[in-house]
């Protein structure tokens, strides 16, 4: 379970361009839920994700994952429970490293970084099997540099890397908005495949209403730091929000 309790955040406090984002936001997600988040620019969607992932610290309030307070846990330590995909496909992978080296880092997320060899036969077989699920032929390109892949391929790889170690929470910040329509569909399909039948909580920010209602089990709309709408189930098909 992911719980956000009484969250406060103001940027540039007591300065002329003070920007108040959250004033006591409360939000709760159950295991297995897939929540799409919509809302205008500056509403606080990305800030919410940054606070959950630990990139930004809140002024006040608490974040709990499965009952443990992670509000002030360093980012790299809470990352063990949280997978993340950014809007920019270039952000989630290391371009100078090969496909297998990138995947190895993701698969070893929860193992100590010891002096064992990173890539062996066993891990290599696992990679091929996981990569073939992407249907992009990447299983035959393990030794290619990731920098040579297309944006769509890199985003698919990022998604695989973010979820391969089975995090409790998956944060998707507009994962498809930099991609062409075909790659978008491919990524969305993958997201559905991964989140279905999983206890992982998925949060996805999107500006595409069709995506917001077609995917997931629940939709929330954030406006000026407040949850303005929170609906789940069949009601979602009928929403027509005014931004």
């Amino acid at each position, binding site marked *: 379970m992911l719980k956000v309790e009484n969250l406060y955040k103001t940027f540039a406090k007591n300065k002329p361009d003070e920007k108040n984002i959250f004033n006591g936001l409360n939000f709760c997600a159950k295991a297995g839920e897939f929540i799409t988040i919509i809302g205008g620019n500056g509403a606080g969607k990305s800030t919410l994700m940054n606070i959950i992932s630990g990139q930004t610290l809140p002024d006040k309030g608490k974040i709990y994952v499965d009952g443990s307070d992670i509000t002030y846990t360093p980012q*790299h330590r809470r*990352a063990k429970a949280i997978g993340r995909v950014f809007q920019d496909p270039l952000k989630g*992978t*290391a*371009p100078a*490293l090969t496909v297998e*080296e990138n995947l190895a*880092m993701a698969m070893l997320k929860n193992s100590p970084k*010891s002096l064992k060899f990173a890539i062996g036969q066993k891990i290599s077989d696992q990679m091929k099997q996981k990569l073939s699920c992407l249907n992009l032929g990447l299983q035959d390109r393990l030794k290619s540099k990731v920098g040579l892949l297309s944006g769509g391929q890199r985003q698919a790889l990022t998604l695989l890397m973010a979820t391969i170690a089975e995090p409790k929470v998956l944060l998707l910040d507009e994962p498809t908005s930099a991609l062409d329509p075909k790659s978008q569909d491919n990524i969305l399909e993958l997201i559905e495949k991964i989140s279905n039948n999983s206890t992982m909580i998925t949060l996805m920010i999107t500006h595409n209403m069709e995506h917001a209602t077609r995917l997931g089990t629940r939709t929330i709309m954030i406006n000026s730091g407040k949850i303005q709408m929170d609906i789940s189930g069949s009601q979602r098909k009928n929403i027509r929000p005014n931004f």
Partner: protein
Amino acid sequence: MNILISTITQGLIYAILGIGVYITFRILNFADMTAEGSLGLGGSVCAVLVSNAVNPVTSIILAGFIGSASGLVTGVLHTKFKIQPILSGILTMIALYSINLKIMGKPNISLIESETIFSSKEGDQLINLILMAIICLIILVLLILFFKTRLGLSIRATGDNEEMMRALGTNTNSKKQLALSISGGICAISGALLSLNQGYSDVNMGTGTIVIALSSIVIGEALTCKNSFQAKLVSVVFGSIAYRLIITLVLNLGMNPQDLKLFTAAVAAILLGLPNIRKTIKRSVINAKS
């Protein structure tokens, strides 16, 4: 012939410095100036030990460990004090100048009378060359193996995409500190070997060596067509030898040794800029045609 052999031997010694700088400059993407200080530190420590009749091999290894401490200082300045990479390195480098003077107790130490790993006899140059080649090979093999391990790979990934590694639960600060320490240690070993080879250690011997290292890296990259990590690391050695040969050649052609640093800097600048210069020329040729 003897000049050629001793030039290549020197190239191999500076190759180790090049490898140390490669770790920060290319793998970690960290413009690190500590190398100049670490080289001097290694030279100073080794010279003091050897002139006090300590076994030269032990001295080299000790110099390496002390050198890695200097890299760690830069790492802490950058990751804990949040000082920019270039400035962190410069601060350590400047501090090391005084430290090196303190270690030696005087600006230079002669090792002419001492036992070193190199033979100073007339006909033994080839043995020195083979010895250096073996040392280089050992360092290369160890590093290539290290960067294939989980720890080593996480350092490479940190240098390539730090944000990704943080999202993948890695403490990127500790990885940077480790990489800088390894680099500092290797640069110090290079300094130790340099002082043993030339028969003295001087407090100024590090000055300008970062440019030599960068030139070696860039020449090496131009010499190799393979794009793999291992090939690039090995290419630094050949780059360094090529660089030494060029320097020896221009000195033999009668260039004033005082102009050497100017020449070195110019060569490095041209080599670093070459890929862009080539692009600009290509573009203007295409424009002229159309």
